């Protein structure tokens, strides 16, 4: 301690060093100036790096050519947006994506809710982390590797078909692959944990006494779930569904690998504009903007609805 106060340590010497001292005096002269210096870099960063790409995408979507060739004038236009509505080859995948994402989100919710419920309510505190960690392990494995694992599971010579065949249930393998079913299995597999964690933390906060009180008053298991657990975990359901919906609309590799020609999603449509050498970027940007806007509007409406439901339950 004495060493530090006498200023012989590195930090003490630094603080006493003339130029550093002057710089500190200058930058911390007033709380206002100090804050401006602290805030300048973060604000600049989020504006140019976080917001910038989105704004630039929207700007490009309103132009007729990008990147601009020399000597060609760049004009602003709404044609890229008009193109979307003009052809069913564009808006069919769009609506398919939104419907698929909605259905897959609902499936994820139905599958993970009992799992989260079991973890939060029926496993002792000491074991909860262990049981949760067990489920987190596959989560660390990447998107492509897990998609490939599903391909092996569901292929014509895959494990599921082998099992069904050896049980004598089928003679010919069922073609699971390249359908909306295989895509659904893959996407639920990838997103399950984003649903599980918000549900788990919502259920964990729920006091156990509530369920016991309901049971004492004669409520059965289903009534207890519907009248006690469900209304009190709406917040967790709402944030889990929002997260999973947004993530499932953005998958590109999984639909390419697990889906077929009849399950083309909008991500594939958008990506198509960036693969070709031709000048299709503005259209791709417009389509991406449409999709982002639609996803935002849908999730915002959903959250409003859920919070209205929550308020209704409280009264």
């Amino acid at each position, binding site marked *: 301690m004495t060493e530090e106060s006498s200023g012989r340590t590195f930090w003490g010497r630094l603080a006493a060093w003339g130029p550093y001292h002057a710089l500190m005096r200058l930058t*911390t002269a007033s709380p206002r100036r100090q804050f401006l210096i602290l805030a300048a870099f973060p604000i600049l960063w989020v504006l140019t790096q*976080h917001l910038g790409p989105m704004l630039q995408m929207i700007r490009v979507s309103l132009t007729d050519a990008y990147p601009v060739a020399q000597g060609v004038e760049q004009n602003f236009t709404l044609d890229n947006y008009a193109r979307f509505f003009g052809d069913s080859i564009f808006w069919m995948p769009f609506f398919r994506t939104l419907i698929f994402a909605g259905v897959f989100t609902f499936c994820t919710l139905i599958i993970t809710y009992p799992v989260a419920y*079991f973890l939060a309510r029926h496993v002792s505190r000491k074991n909860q982390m262990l049981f949760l960690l067990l489920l987190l392990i*596959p989560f660390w494995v990447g998107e492509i590797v897990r998609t490939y694992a599903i391909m092996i599971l569901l292929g014509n010579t895959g494990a599921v078909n082998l099992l069904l065949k050896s049980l004598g249930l089928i003679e010919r393998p069922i073609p699971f692959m390249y359908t909306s079913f295989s895509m659904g299995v893959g996407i639920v597999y990838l997103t399950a944990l984003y649903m599980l964690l918000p549900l788990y933390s919502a259920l964990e906060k729920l006091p156990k006494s509530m369920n016991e009180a309901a049971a004492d008053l004669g409520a059965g298991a289903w009534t207890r779930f519907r009248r006690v657990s469900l209304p009190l975990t709406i917040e967790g359901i709402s944030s889990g569904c929002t997260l999973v919906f947004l993530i499932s609309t953005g998958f590109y590799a999984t639909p390419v690998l697990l889906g077929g020609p009849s399950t083309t999603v909008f991500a594939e449509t958008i990506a198509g504009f960036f693969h070709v050498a031709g000048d299709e970027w503005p259209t791709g940007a417009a389509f991406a903007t449409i999709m982002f806007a639609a996803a935002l509007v849908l999730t915002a409406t959903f959250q409003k609805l859920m919070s209205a439901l929550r308020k209704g339950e409280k009264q």
Partner: protein
Amino acid sequence: MNDRPELFRGNRIFLACVYWAFVLYVFVPLILMVVMGFKDSKFIGFPIRSWTLDWYTGVFADAEVLSTFGYSTAIAVLSTLISVFVGIWIAVMLEGRRFWGRTAVFGMTVLPALVPGIISAIAFRIYARWLGIEPGMGAIVWAHAVHNVPFVVLVVMARLSTLPRSQIEAARDLGADPLISFIRITLPYLVPAILGASIFCLLLSFDDFVRSFFLGGYEPTLPVLIFAKLRSGMSPEINAIATIALILTAAIGIWAERFTRRMNKET
């Protein structure tokens, strides 16, 4: 635990079955994939009649695959360093005093984490072109760094909110300026959060496909390589590559989980 288990026993057995069925659902595909890497045949599919280690030894002899591992690791490390540096700075600013427009800044901070994958990749692709960044390592590092910043900010902010303010005040009373008190008090307190966030960023970057795919040049990252190989047909070679990637990422994830938990308990 329920105080009166007899009330809930029926539910409990049902829910336990659902839980273990779910464990099977998340593990079985990965186990099958690992097993398939030992199959002594070019064709993916069951049943497996003879076994071999050739696919694995093949991976370690394949210079292209090995350099891809290195490339992905380098990208992960560089982007994590940037994300952590920027993320801490943003978190300290947001967790400090309240200011006008704080909600807007927070909203913009978490934006990259909420944008669906394909849209984020497209937006980065367009922006990189505008900035004049060529597709390749620099572009991927930049995109991963920006995408991962929100996760660092959220983890560090959570830790900052439990920082005992009295320690900072004591340091200031003893004459430490804001910078020195940050480096000597705040930063050491944040170490568990920083480590946890770093590991998370490393894994996110290492596993990322969509941004690497759209911003990459000729050299593929590991997920992009696996994707390209898959498009030209399934083979046990891919299983061997994927299994090695799986073991690496899962091991780092488990280790980090345990490590940060222990550190959080100690401090």
